[in-house]
């Protein structure tokens, strides 16, 4: 038996979210003594990393029809390989790629699915997986009763364990049929840290009074190696681009560190950030509701506090 993990790549390198999925599969396989097979579309450069996190084998699917992101053809490839490898469990990341592929795969394989897992499967009484529900306000334990199963892993929620396996590489040609979607253009952010994958995020809100004041936010983010984000009103007023908007209607994130500057902490904002591991709130209003969800707080004026933080962070990295 084996566990199949779908791994997304960017220029041949496996995405961080996919490496987490590999580690999740390897940790699941540990107790059930199964082989972990990573599946990629096209070739992978960073095979060492797949081995580090526990992949025994890499199957590189070669198909001329998947030159762009084609979720239904990728799902078909996973289904075919699952059949060949006699696999009943497939793992994907619950990143945007996994969200596009997994529901299609679930129908194709007739597999029950839990998306956004935050813990390893518990097989002591059936197959039960824990996931966040109510937008981070609770957890549910969900049992999959079908023979075939799919689990998608919430990014940045699983401790990556090192297995240091040797990964055997196979290439398989598959005829997946013609794509039904024609991709015209891809806009992939190249230089900045993509917000959903960032481990540290510095975010600011209306308290900053205007877009011209964002330099200090960017300076702090740069010193900490963090991505920048903003609250909804700031995106709505076009002070910052919409893809930076975190919260219920924008991007939901769960970094290790979230620093919120001049954001009051409305429940809609919290729904997008409340699973961050450490939350720092900086606000002039000591009654701001965000302090109730914070680990560290500073009641003070951002225009005085942030430059000092930037200096302190600089000294730290010096």
């Amino acid at each position, binding site marked *: 038996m084996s566990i199949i993990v779908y791994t997304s790549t960017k220029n041949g390198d496996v995405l961080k979210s996919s490496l987490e999925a590999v580690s999740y599969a390897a940790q699941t396989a540990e107790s059930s003594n199964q082989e972990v097979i990573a599946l990629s579309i096209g070739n992978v450069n960073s095979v060492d990393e797949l081995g580090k996190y526990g992949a025994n084998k890499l199957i590189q699917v070669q198909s001329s029809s998947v030159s762009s992101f084609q979720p239904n053809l990728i799902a078909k490839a996973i289904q075919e390989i699952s059949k060949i490898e006699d696999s009943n469990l497939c793992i994907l990341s619950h990143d945007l790629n996994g969200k596009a592929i997994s529901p299609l795969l679930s129908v194709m394989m007739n597999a029950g699915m839990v998306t956004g897992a935050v813990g390893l499967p518990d097989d002591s009484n059936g197959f039960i997986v824990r996931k966040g529900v109510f937008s981070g*306000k609770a*957890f549910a334990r969900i049992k999959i009763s079908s023979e075939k199963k799919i689990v998608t892993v919430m990014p940045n929620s699983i401790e990556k364990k090192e297995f240091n396996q040797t990964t055997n590489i196979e290439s398989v040609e598959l005829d997946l049929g013609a794509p039904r979607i024609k991709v015209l253009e891809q806009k992939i952010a190249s230089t900045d840290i993509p917000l959903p994958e960032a481990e540290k995020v510095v975010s600011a809100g209306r308290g900053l009074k205007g877009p011209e004041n964002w330099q200090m936010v960017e300076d702090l983010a740069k010193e900490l190696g963090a991505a920048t984000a903003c609250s909804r009103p700031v995106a709505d007023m076009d002070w910052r681009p919409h893809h930076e908007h975190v919260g219920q*209607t924008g991007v939901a994130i769960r970094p290790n560190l979230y620093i919120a500057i001049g954001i009051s902490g409305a429940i809609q904002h919290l729904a997008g950030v409340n699973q961050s591991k450490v939350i720092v709130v900086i606000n002039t209003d000591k009654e701001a509701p965000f302090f109730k969800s914070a680990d*560290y707080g500073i009641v003070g004026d951002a225009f005085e506090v942030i430059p000092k*933080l930037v200096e302190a962070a600089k000294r*730290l990295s010096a």
Partner: protein
Amino acid sequence: MKILVCISKVPDTTAKIAFKDNNTAYDTDGVQFIINPYDEWYALVRALEIKESQGGSVTVLNVGGPENDPTIRKALAIGADGAVRVNINSTDAMNTAQNIAGFAKEEGFDIVFCGKETIDYNGSQVGGMIAALLDMPYISYASKLDLDGSKATIERDIQGGKEILEVEVPFVLSAAKGMAEARIPNMRGIMAARTKPLNVIEPSSSDNMTEIVSYELPPAKGECKFVDAENPEELIELLRNEAKII
């Protein structure tokens, strides 16, 4: 364009989250329910805009019991032409998708809209499952949709960026921010909604592949540790040596 918009009923964003029956059921006592925001603000409103500019019809569909009817009426008040409710309470995404596809497959919809996820179970599953069941292309996390005859140009979120693509109807999409702006129903809409059709149909599937065993609340957050605004350097110190994250 003949359009179907799938709407889910969810607790209001500000609703308190509590569980009952030994943590096996969500306690709905005193909870205000709304249409799932992504289904309403983005999917339904964009569907109505398409109908307004090029004609056609917009049907909303909900899978649930009679207690969902007031929520469905709100979608009619916003402007949908008619509504269908599949009479089954389900927490299994595949069951929900099968019931939606069971209805949709005979109807010949050009576009089936869903929201990108629901704010209660956060699954992001049903839209894609409907597409696979109906054998239609699925475009997830779509933030922009333009139609030119039967050809759609769509912008969608992918890992690390965005993608612009072309697809022919029929297709299924899940709507994300950017697709449209929320609309508030007006008095005329609310009055009209009372007489619009809300057809109740029996489920075509009752199979489940998943079941919720139990719920739990996250551990309570500890007290916030305050750092003096005169000495913010201390924060950096704490993040490095106490929280150990920088």
